[in-house]
């Protein structure tokens, strides 16, 4: 056999293995263990592979026996089992022509196969990739820095906001945001990335969605807009055969691909037993950097990130924290939330930093809180709010109040009630100031009446 036919045989083995692996957990890992690595497994003969994996067919991998499952679950398990057996029995076929139905089939040996993924222990033998100009984007992905942002499917308003901020800022810095197109944190981060990098010239996709099912299935359906955006401007990647339905065991498998494609994983919110914690553990195994966004103490959604922080994960308050550890430069400007990468000291100092960024200049805005009045686009815009001298009653100066409230907003978001307490102002003064800030586009109100400084 010549070199060419050897390559072809390896590609066929990879596709065969991908098909088998689509219907039973741990197949790739088993093959890689048995032959030392996936690379070696692809060189193995078909009978040897079959023999290694056939045992898998018998053990049913410790899952609940079919009898205990009911209804649809039992039916799906039975179908999966029969697909696994028939895939195992199938002959090697040369891989399908590419591109196929608008998607791309990339096997382990292909040049386009993401190099970071290839270096993991049990990488997918083949990947299905969808998206406009998929080949080009996949090629660019190899060069671009990539960071996974994952978390709970039911985030709090804070988690949503952090996912949006981090996803958007990473994309602005030229980083590919990898995630699982799940509800909640995943889709928030990915949509923010797609939005932030809408007019980016580079070939690298702003975001890559890794699926736990076939490319032809959009799960969950309510993320249809995100799927559309990812097909148009990003990439959708899966190791699963077309038509494979989503099921519980495929999500951890997908998470290993998310971790494998990225240089770092950022966990935003999650409970103790959440999938994002699994992703973080897989990331550690694949020697990726792990970041956790701190939450409020004692909250269920803070459990996963705080557990990771205790284990030594990096603290992530903003995209800059990730960029600093990965040795990347901030290539974007104008972010309000920029605590600074080196020793951002007490709150006041950080605030000055912020206002300087707001003014678009790099120069320091002087010392202490009063400087806010003199610097920043915020203060200029507020000039328009200033009550004229002629106003009857000469009430409290709205602009000054608005500045005080803006300072409190930069410290932390809060309801009008919180802000009144922190700024030491009356409730009605704060609500008026917040509206003025909102009109000038300097503050935003989220559900629950929580205001935050606009970016």
């Amino acid at each position, binding site marked *: 056999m010549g070199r060419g036919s050897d390559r072809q045989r390896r590609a066929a083995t990879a596709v065969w293995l991908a098909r088998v692996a689509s219907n039973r957990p741990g197949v790739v890992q088993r093959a890689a263990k048995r032959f030392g690595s996936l690379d070696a497994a692809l060189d193995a003969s078909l009978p040897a592979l079959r023999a290694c994996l056939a045992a898998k067919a018998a053990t049913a991998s410790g899952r609940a026996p079919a009898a205990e499952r009911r209804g649809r679950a039992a039916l799906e398990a039975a179908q999966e089992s029969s697909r696994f057996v028939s895939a195992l029995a199938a002959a090697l076929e040369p891989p399908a022509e590419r591109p196929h139905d608008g998607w791309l089939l990339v096997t382990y040996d292909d040049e386009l196969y993401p190099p970071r993924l290839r270096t993991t222990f049990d990488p997918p033998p083949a990947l299905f990739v969808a998206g406009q100009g998929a080949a080009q984007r996949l090629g660019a992905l190899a060069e671009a820095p990539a960071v996974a942002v994952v978390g709970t499917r039911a985030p709090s308003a*804070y988690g949503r906001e952090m996912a949006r901020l981090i996803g958007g800022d990473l994309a602005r810095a030229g980083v590919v945001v990898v995630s699982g197109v799940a509800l909640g944190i995943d889709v928030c981060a990915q949509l923010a990335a797609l939005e932030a990098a809408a007019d980016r010239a580079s070939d690298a996709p702003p975001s890559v969605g890794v699926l736990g099912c076939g490319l032809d299935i959009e799960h969950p359906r309510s993320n249809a807009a995100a799927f559309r955006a990812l097909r148009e401007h990003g990439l959708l990647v899966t190791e699963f055969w077309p038509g494979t339905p989503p099921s519980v065991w495929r999500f951890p498998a997908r998470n290993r691909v998310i971790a494998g494609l990225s240089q770092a994983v950022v966990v935003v919110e999650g409970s103790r037993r959440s999938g994002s914690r699994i992703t973080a553990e897989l990331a550690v195994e694949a020697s990726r950097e792990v970041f956790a966004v701190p939450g409020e103490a004692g909250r269920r959604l803070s459990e996963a990130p705080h557990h990771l922080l205790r284990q030594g994960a990096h603290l992530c308050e903003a995209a800059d924290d990730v960029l600093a550890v990965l040795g990347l430069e901030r290539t974007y400007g104008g972010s309000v939330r920029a605590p600074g990468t080196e020793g951002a000291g007490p709150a006041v100092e950080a605030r000055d930093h912020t206002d300087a960024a707001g003014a678009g200049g790099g120069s320091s805005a002087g010392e202490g809180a009063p400087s806010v009045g003199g610097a920043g686009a915020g203060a200029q815009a507020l000039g328009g709010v200033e009550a004229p001298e002629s106003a*009857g009653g000469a009430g409290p100066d709205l602009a000054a109040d608005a500045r005080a409230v803006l300072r409190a907003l930069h410290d932390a978001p809060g*309801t009008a009630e919180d802000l009144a307490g922190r700024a030491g102002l009356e*409730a*009605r003064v704060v609500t008026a100031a917040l509206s003025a800030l909102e*009109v000038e586009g300097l503050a935003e109100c989220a559900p629950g009446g929580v205001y935050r400084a606009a970016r």
Partner: protein
Amino acid sequence: MLARITSETLFGLQGHAVEVEADVVAAAPAFSIVGLPDAAVQESRERVRAAIVNSGFEFPSRRITVNLAPADLRKEGPGFDLPIALAFLLATGQARRNGGGEVAALGELGLDGAVRPVSGVLAVVESLRRRGVGRVLVPTANAAEAALVQGVGVIPVERLRDAVGALGSGAAAAAARPDVGALLHDGSAGDADFADVAGQAVVKRALEIAAAGGHNLLMVGPPGSGKTMLARRLPTIMPALTVDEAIAVTRVHSVAGLLPARVPLVTRRPFRAPHHSISVPGLVGGGSSPRPGEVSLAHLGVLFLDEFPEFRVSALEALRQPLEDGEVTISRALTSVTYPARITLVAAMNPCPCGFRGDRERQCTCPGYRLQQYRSRLSGPLLDRIDLRLEVARVPPREHRLAGRGESSAAVRARVEEARRRQRARLGGAIGANAHMTAPQVRRLCKLDAAATSLLDRAYDRLRLSARACDRVAKVAQTIADLEGAAGITVSHVAEALSYRVERGQG
């Protein structure tokens, strides 16, 4: 022999004269009531017969015909027992009428001859006064309520025998008119007070504005954030009821049969909180002879609709007329009834079906489509009639303990009343409060200074407000200015009003 006594039936709040005639002739014994009586009136034959016998009168074996005239008007309720019995006793010569002027009677009879209270006495006696009836016999339990009407001699009767006596003497003592001022003064203090609310300064401020300007408001907040508790305290900071207002409220409550016995007057602004499963007739009034619904029972008070989007759409839509006109008209085949319904609407809703969207501590589990469904239940026209929206957050228990008692209802009410006085001076009597201004009136009467106008214009562009929303902001700003005692509307007033705007971008 024929005898006649006058009485009154109510259709809505409108009284109609009813002449009760009794004729006793020597013929085969029978007792029949004619003149379109309803079931309760038909049954009064049995009550009247027993009451007469048990009061020691005679029930002769003759043919007795009672006619309720006019014959084409439907007569309802047990209030005709007493006039029927009196007409019968007059016809059989067992009672005698003495003294000048016409005498009316109303009351239900017990089998033992006791006179029991009936509903709607206030409206009935008012109608009698308009007809020029000089004296009226009413059940003792209703006497104080009836005596609110000046110019009619109200004679309380405990038993059928007392009524016969009063009819005969012509000089029975009339009940004294209750001291309305004292009643209102004593009765205005409730057990709920603004001082009970811990923290929540923003919400309290919004409630004060709502009370001062008569604005309807929408509260959005998770379960347990105290929406009901806050709404319940809104009536306590609204201006105290005037005598006329108290009588107007009493009239409706009396017709609905909700006035407790021996209580002459509703002294506090009503607070009605119907459950969201309420039917359209239950909410706006209805029935074959239309009874007042919750909107009318909340007249001059607060109608609180918790779980606002859960109300049936037809019920919410039916609220539009009363919110616009301050009254509700219920049409029937032959006639229509109008009840007053000048209410302050307080609507409360969760931010989402599960209630925890935007909450600091709990997570929202609502799928997007459910959220959309939930919000789409609130129609634009209905929201157009709501001026204030406020977000109510849950206050952690520790903050409850830390927060001292707030300002009392009386202190807030003093400011509200002052603001109302300013409004009356500016608006005249026709428009009660800022909230009731029409769009042209807003443009004519709300004087915004230059900075305030420019802020509102910018808000129109930047916050994508509609023209109607701008008008509502102007109205609320006017109320804020009134609370402050300012001559015109300044930029601070508009800015604060903007923070309560109903339309908000929803993340």
